[in-house]
């Protein structure tokens, strides 16, 4: 029998020693080798016919952005014809928030972990608030926004990195964690810290004030969740260090495509284990209600895979209000529960209310099945048929993928029969 304990100690060690840094801005073509009519999407594999409305909208936006179609109807016909190849972001070392659609020409952050020698990518931004690709928007505001990010924002950020060198995300995130971010649904501190880091170099890189002003606005004030792309890349770079780790029962991927929730397990390699995505228990913006909500969506559950987000809820009083946690005690109990299903703690993210104990890290499928405790995910809620965010909440992962993964693990490692 394989030494599961040793493998899981190694998994925890890799997750804890990861030191991701932002090193470059590259297109999907350059960073991920995307070619032809290929699109990446959030969550486990899914074909056009089963995609939810927000993902279909994001696919249309990407097809228009790439020039594969001239109208939304043409883009839809193209996708339905089978002429676009779809693959999960996770299959290429990338992550995408909500619909998470990435095309060959999408400018991406490149994050590298020099300790574990891994990389990860995600898109920088995806259109102005209310017109974001991630929620399925594909109108002129979105397309103009995507082109501006490609033609103005990406070169400016690239110039900053060329001047400054890599930006240490591990240090920035550790600081933001002590400032109340759990870095899934609250990135306000991290966004502020990143803006502080970028401000002077951006001024130097973009001397034309008329060009600089909208970039500074994007970085500094439009969206407290601006940093989410960076936090997701950092978490993905860390999680990639355990992909394929023989004999480990630690989860290396959790993601949702708006229809299904899926996991992958370190010691089981590529296969996904899926179940229908959850209904998010949430707090809705005025004018929206639970009946408007899409099912749980996006690759952002990589944050929980890394031990942040819902697993660290006790450390973030601010996020408890954002996602509608019932009480302070409830958030504390959630983090304690999450500790029951993890192999250890990450000292990079100490939780003051737990005496400085690190955040629970390394979800073990055996513990999930044994305790019947499933991961809790803090998350945004997408409208099911309109291109916008309508609230935020807590998603409870379905149990079935963990049970199925445990059975597959037992089969793979010769423990299925006594």
């Amino acid at each position, binding site marked *: *029998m394989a030494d*599961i*304990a040793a493998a*899981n100690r190694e998994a925890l060690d890799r997750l804890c020693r990861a030191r991701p840094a932002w090193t470059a801005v590259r297109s999907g073509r350059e960073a991920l080798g995307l070619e032809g009519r290929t699109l990446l999407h959030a969550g486990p594999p899914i074909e056009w016919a089963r995609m939810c409305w927000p993902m279909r909208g994001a696919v249309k936006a990407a097809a228009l952005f790439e020039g594969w179609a001239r109208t939304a109807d043409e883009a839809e016909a193209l996708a339905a014809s089978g002429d676009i190849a779809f693959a999960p972001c996770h299959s290429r070392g990338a992550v995408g928030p909500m619909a998470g659609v990435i095309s060959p020409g999408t400018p991406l952050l490149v994050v590298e972990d020099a300790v574990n020698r891994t990389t990860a990518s995600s898109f920088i931004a995806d259109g102005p608030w209310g017109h974001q690709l991630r929620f399925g928007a594909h109108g002129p505001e979105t397309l103009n926004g995507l082109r501006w990010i490609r033609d103005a924002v990406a070169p400016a950020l690239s110039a900053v990195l060329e001047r400054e060198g890599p930006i240490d995300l591990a240090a920035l995130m550790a600081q933001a964690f002590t400032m109340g971010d759990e870095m899934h649904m609250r990135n306000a501190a991290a966004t502020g810290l990143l803006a502080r880091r970028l401000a002077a170099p951006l001024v130097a890189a973009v001397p034309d004030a008329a060009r600089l002003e909208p970039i500074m606005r994007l970085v500094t004030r439009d969206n407290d969740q601006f940093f989410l792309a960076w936090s997701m890349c950092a978490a993905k770079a860390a999680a990639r260090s355990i992909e394929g780790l023989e004999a480990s*029962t630690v989860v290396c991927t959790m993601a949702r495509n708006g229809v299904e929730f899926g996991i992958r397990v370190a010691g089981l390699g590529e296969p996904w284990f899926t179940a229908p995505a959850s209904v998010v228990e949430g707090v809705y913006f005025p004018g929206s209600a639970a009946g408007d909500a899409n099912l749980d969506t996006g690759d952002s559950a990589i944050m929980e895979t890394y031990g942040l987000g819902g697993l660290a809820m006790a450390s973030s009083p601010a996020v408890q209000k954002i996602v509608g946690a019932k009480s302070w005690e409830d958030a504390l109990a959630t983090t304690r529960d999450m500790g029951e299903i993890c192999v250890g703690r990450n000292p990079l993210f100490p939780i003051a209310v737990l005496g400085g104990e690190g955040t629970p890290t390394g979800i073990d499928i*055996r513990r*999930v*099945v*044994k*305790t*019947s*405790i499933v991961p809790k995910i803090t998350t945004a809620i997408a409208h099911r048929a309109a291109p916008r965010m309508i609230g935020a909440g807590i998603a409870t992962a379905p*149990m079935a993928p*963990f*049970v199925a993964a*445990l*059975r597959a*693990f*037992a089969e793979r*490692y010769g*423990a*299925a029969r*006594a």
Partner: protein
Amino acid sequence: MTLDAGLDQPLRVVNVGLELFAEQIEAQGAAVDRVDWRPPAGGPDIASLLARLED
């Protein structure tokens, strides 16, 4: 000791799992120690699978 004799004395109850049971006993004035436990997920074969996959 018969059951009746036992119930004559102040009760101290250990409740394993369902919170509703603990609340109902507390409503009768008895002290309850809670053990947070849920049965493993899956099916009848899961317990033996878990045992074989223990550290």
